[in-house]
């Protein structure tokens, strides 16, 4: 499988004498030294590869350079040094016109504050990228309507952006990005401005869509939970550098340094998580037939751990009408526990440890 998106030693420096600053960074100078000279190193030596169909999450606090990194991937910002290869093409070597062509056809973007055009209807917003490509109106309206339908906005085509809720507006943003059939989707903190429940909905929707669309996605976030939920692979950024790249499990269980560890440590999710948040909604249907103890969607995480320890198989979750809505395998418990605990030595009976941890917390 050939690599779709590759970033090779990307640097972005703002300020005077950028080239010289890059040389100094290569020689080991750090951000603070440069800042004293009035230059800002936003991204330092960033390299990664994103395979086709993968969701690659870049996680970091504000000011870590993750948005700058994203904008170098579609050429909105020109890297000071390094290359961006997409589909085997070096984007940094393209002329302005060719680069615009790539952006119009192959890469699209979803923004933090939606960036919908207030003077265009929902349908026209969704069709914007196609209009730039020069697709004739009937075809682009058809494709835009299809994208809106995919994002759950069928029937809203004639509405205007300011008539929609935040979550719906971002669905329009997503539809606009999907309508162009671009292979690469850049998402810049796209769900951060939404309130938590809507954010979760949108994450679910993105995952559902991704199962059929198989886009290559680079997703920027400062939210660890979001990174864990969405990311096939996650890069953690700090002060312009990528400090660790790996799967969610890698980051949770094998943090490469203290910064990543502390990042994970900060989150104690066991107190707020319930079975509904933890469970796997993909069920066979017979998990609750054994007559063992079951949980409800409201069962707290700690109780769930106790259940999981007593049962030899995944805990079944039943709703008020005693219908099966999900299962919680031990591995899932482990994964969520990791968020609150940092490095754990893959224990045989995780729930015992979990209870102690919770008690201590």
């Amino acid at each position: 499988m050939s690599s779709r998106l590759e970033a090779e030693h990307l640097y972005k420096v703002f300020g005077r004498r950028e080239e010289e600053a890059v040389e100094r960074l290569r020689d080991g100078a750090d951000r603070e030294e440069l800042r004293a000279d009035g230059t800002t190193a936003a991204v330092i030596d960033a390299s990664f590869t994103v395979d086709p169909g993968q969701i690659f999450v870049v996680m970091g606090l504000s000011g870590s350079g993750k948005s700058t990194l994203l904008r170098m991937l579609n050429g909105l910002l020109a890297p000071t040094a390094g290359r961006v290869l997409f589909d085997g093409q070096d984007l940094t070597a393209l002329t302005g016109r060719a680069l615009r062509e790539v952006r119009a056809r192959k890469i699209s973007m979803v923004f933090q504050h939606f960036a919908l055009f207030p003077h265009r209807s929902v349908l026209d917003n969704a069709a914007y990228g196609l209009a730039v490509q020069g697709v004739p109106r009937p075809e682009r309206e058809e494709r835009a309507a299809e994208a809106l339908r995919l994002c759950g906005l069928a029937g809203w085509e004639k509405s205007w952006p300011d008539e929609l809720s935040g979550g719906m507006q971002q669905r329009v943003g997503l539809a606009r990005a999907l309508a162009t059939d671009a292979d690469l989707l850049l998402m810049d903190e796209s769900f951060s401005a939404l309130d938590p429940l809507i954010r979760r909905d949108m994450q679910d929707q993105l995952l559902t869509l991704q199962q059929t669309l198989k886009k290559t996605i680079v997703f920027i976030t400062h939210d660890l939970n979001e990174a864990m939920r969405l990311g096939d692979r996650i890069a953690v950024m700090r002060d312009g550098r990528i400090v660790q790249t790996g799967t969610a499990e890698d980051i949770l269980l094998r943090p490469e340094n203290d910064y990543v560890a502390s990042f994970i440590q900060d989150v104690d999710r066991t107190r707020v998580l319930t079975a509904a948040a933890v469970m796997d909604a993909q069920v066979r249907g017979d998990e609750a037939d054994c007559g063992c103890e079951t949980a409800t969607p409201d069962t707290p995480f700690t109780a769930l751990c106790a259940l999981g320890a007593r049962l030899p198989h995944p805990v079944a979750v039943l709703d008020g009408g005693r219908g099966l809505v999900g299962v919680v395998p031990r591995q899932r418990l482990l994964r969520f526990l990791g968020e609150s605990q940092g490095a754990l030595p893959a224990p045989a009976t995780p729930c015992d440890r979990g209870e102690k941890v919770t008690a201590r917390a």
Partner: protein
Amino acid sequence: MPRLPLGDAVDSGVDWLLAHMSWLFDAVKTLVEGLYDGLDAVLTAPEPLLLAGILAVLAWWLRGLAAGVLAFAGFALIDSLALWDEAMSTLSLVLVATLVALVISIPLGIWAARSQAVSTAVRPVLDLLQTMPSMVLLIPAILFFGMGVPAGVVATLIFALAPGVRMTELGIRQVDAELVEAAEAFGTPPRDTLFRVQLPLALPTVMAGVNQVIMLGLSMVVIAGMVGTGGLGGAVNEAIGQLDIGLGFEAGLGIVVLAIYLDRMTGALGTRISPLGRRAAAKARTTMWTHRPRAAVAAVGVAVLALAAGGLGLAGPKDGPAKASATDVGKGREITIGYIPWDEGIASTYLWKELLEERGFEVTTTQYAAGPLYTGLATGRIDFQTDSWLPTTHAEYWKKYGDQLADLGTWYGPTSLELSVPSYVKDVNSLADLKAHASEFGGRITGIEPSAGMMGLLKDKVLERYGLDGAYRVVDGSTPAMLAELERAYARKEPILVTLWSPHWAYSEYGLKKLKDPAGAWGEGDGVHTVARKDLAADQPEVGAWLKDFSMTEEQLTGLEARIQKAGKGQEQDAVRTWLKEHPGLVEKWVPVPETGEKSRAAG
């Protein structure tokens, strides 16, 4: 501190421009004049009430029924004040100035929004244009474009340029950066980003700028009236110059009607053409008064009225054939007389207008301040003026323009300049008495236009000679303001000290004392000269000869002045006609028809 010769540099810069860039100014002049003439012709062609109807239908379409009704009422009011032609001339002037201003300012604003360097360079220039007193722009405008509409349009548009640039730049810069980034992220070329995203979203702000341009243009109209643009501005100027409160108010009201109409229409137009505004308007509840017809209905309405207007225009009466007679020396040749609103100037100007029209010339009279008047003569835009006080009072102007003018001699003199007090003021009979009575007059000398030669003489020489420098303050103003002040004080029997000159009708109207000038500080009296442009005598030999031979006695002049004063504003020429009837033989004396066969034919 060394004196920086900045003014001299500007002077020579203007001279250089005049010498080397006149082709450019001529081109601009031709363009502006063409636009103005075309628009004015269209606006004055239909019957006033029909055009009012068309404008009302536009208002109805843009804003609703109430706006339409009010617009019609407003324009009908203008028509009923007999200011229709002036109003249409002003409207054309403002629209042309606005059009040119927008053609310059919107692209400049866009450029400034896209380039920080341009923005930085343009800003101080805009500051200069916006805050430089508009009168200062007017004089170079006359030099470059001559008196009349082009100078007025250029001065207006320069004044109105700044908000157009600023608001366009602001509007574009205000567009959410994320939206611009979104457009770029989808591969939009810069030009499309501008036209599809930035400009549509900046439109409300840009339209606010357009609105400001129009409003500033209208406010400049009065000042532009000083360079002979005519219209409502000219009417206001004349009214101010002659302290005609009624006419001033009427013309001012006309400007207000135009201002409100243009303001509301551009505001509504902004809503119409901006997609966001259209949506907001569509949401608003409709009542009968805010009901708007659909565009098609409005277009049909306008078309019907326009056709009706065109039809009436065709059926309307044509001008009668030109009268051919032996006394028709001018044969329709055009003569432009400029005048300062001094009483002997008004009297002699309207006398000559009547005399020349009697001889078949087409005469235009326009009122100016002294500076523009001499500039106009020197550049040949004005043919002659009858009220040059030489050698003293107008010495400054003669020094500057004398070699570009032709002095056609005195027709009245000698004059005298003086300070005068009402006769009820006791114990003050001579300039020498003033020092002891300063407190009685509040230390004030009520003066006239600061540009007048006698004001300079008073401040520089007379006050010093009689040791009045510390005791009195000369209050600059205008002749009408001085006369109004005199009338007010006279009615209340309050002491007042005014600058005055002879001949003047005030001496027959009020009991006044001319203060004696034992030291001769005022100098010898002036003669009232007729001054023409250099080539008038060559181009119009009859007129040149008549003017050269012209003279009036004191009795004739004060009699005519009093007659005009009594007839009131707007009736000057009728007063002249009546006066000439009462004094038969003067016409033949002043404008004799050349001794040729024509005369005998006319007699026979």
